[in-house]
């Protein structure tokens, strides 16, 4: 049984979206800006209105409010609570659920250790670096022991080295804890390192779902270019076949790729 299933989802972005995320897997949803990636996560989280059905472990979630869906959500801008220190940020979900102080302290310390940020527990978000904030946000999302983890382009504001490091750490934590995870991104490097399966989202439609093996095979020829990004087809600079607009190949500094081009065998 899939851990997350979306059936006939319709709203201002999607016309009839169907999608399954298998239990314990990390599904990467790839797509250009404006494809509906964040909206997709918001639907799973119950943060936006939609028609259709969202199921977690076969149970419909549509009538269940966000705060009762038991999800961990890593927002694009992280959305740490600026008025709480790291310890309180991570322990927030336990506090609002009325857990005992001892239980909360034990769980929070465990997560801080896991994310290697124990030494930061008294600091406030404004005094943290980008990578540290990322770790705090992930620890906070995991504190609820969520059924599903939703990651919304969490590496956007980080440098390449920090990005690599955190990708590995998040992947390791996700595997260790076995949490079903949906990770949306427009960055191929992030996708390649993180995903078990890959769904390609464009213009509010899932165009293709592929396994890790096929994805690596297809993207292998482009491995030398770590800056490969998805973008609007109309701006493709390497001969995109999904648009009739003629491209000026000579003017491109570095090649970029649009979705259908990458996914062509």
């Amino acid at each position, binding site marked *: 049984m899939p851990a997350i299933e979306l059936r006939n989802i319709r709203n201002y972005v999607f016309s009839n979206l169907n999608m399954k995320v298998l239990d314990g897997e990390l599904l990467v949803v790839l797509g250009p800006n404006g494809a509906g990636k964040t909206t997709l996560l918001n639907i799973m*989280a119950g943060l936006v209105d939609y028609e259709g059905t969202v199921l977690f472990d076969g149970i419909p979630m549509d009538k269940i*409010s966000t705060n009762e*869906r038991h*999800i961990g959500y890593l927002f694009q801008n992280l*959305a740490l609570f600026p*008025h709480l220190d790291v310890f309180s940020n991570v322990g927030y979900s336990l506090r*609002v659920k009325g857990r005992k102080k001892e239980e909360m302290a034990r769980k929070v310390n465990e997560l801080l250790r896991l994310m290697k940020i124990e030494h930061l527990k008294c600091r406030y978000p404004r005094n943290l670096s980008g990578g540290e904030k990322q770790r705090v946000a992930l620890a906070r999302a995991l504190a*609820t022991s969520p059924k599903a983890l939703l990651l919304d382009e969490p590496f956007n504001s980080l440098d390449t080295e920090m990005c690599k490091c955190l990708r590995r750490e998040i992947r390791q934590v996700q595997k260790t804890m076995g949490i079903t995870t949906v990770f949306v991104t427009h960055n191929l490097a992030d996708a390649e390192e993180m995903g078990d399966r890959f769904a390609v989202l464009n213009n509010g439609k899932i165009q293709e779902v592929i396994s890790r093996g096929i994805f690596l095979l297809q993207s292998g020829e482009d491995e030398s270019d770590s800056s490969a990004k998805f973008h609007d087809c109309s701006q493709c600079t390497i001969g995109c076949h999904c648009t009739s607009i003629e491209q000026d190949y000579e003017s491109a500094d570095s090649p970029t790729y649009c979705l259908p081009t990458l996914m062509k065998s």
Partner: protein
Amino acid sequence: MKIKNVMLGILPVMVFVALWEGIAQLNMVPQYLFPPFSSVMMEFYHLVASGVLLDNLLSSLVRVIAGFLMGSVAGIVMGMGMGCKEVINKSFHPIFGLLYPIPALGWAPLLMIWIGIDEMLPITLIFLCSFFPVLYNTITGIKGVDKEVIKAAKTLGASDRKILTTVILPLAMPNIFTGLRLEAGMAWRVVIAAEMVAIPTGIGALMMKSESLLNVEVIIVCLMVLSVMCLAFERFFQYMEKKITREWV
């Protein structure tokens, strides 16, 4: 460095007092109109020793605290409602928008007729003077809270009530405190004015009595007390604001 800063603050005051004393002692203006600083201090001592100053100060203080507390609490509660629920905001905004520009003292004649000339008059005036600025600062603070942070709290299992008390209200605090700080001083100005025109006790009333007796020393003592109280109230809220928000603002 700290001593130097303190001296820099005190020095102008000392120069001002010295000039005041010197000019008054020259008798260019009759001393009953422009008394020297030393006479004012003597009057201050007599007023404190006789208990007159403290009695009147206490009367004013109780009015300020009562009116300010009620106005602030009402402003914060209403502001929370209007900031969080658009339907409340839309319902009340037009009426508050019309009432807000009226200066608190502008209500005095009407309130004299409606509630009479008693303790409730200055308290009501202070309520009106505190309510609107605290209300609008609270609305601004609440509407300014990052929507993503609210969403994050929801995904972490917080109910709407918990989000309000643990996220929205704390993050709106800097704005709420700005309103409180500005209106704390204003409350003193309003109570003095109300006591001058209608109430027989309090610092304002003491000033009016002294005016009829041409007792300029007492008027100056009252003005000095008023200045200190305004400053003390503003500083208190400044201190509280810093204490609560200094780690994260």
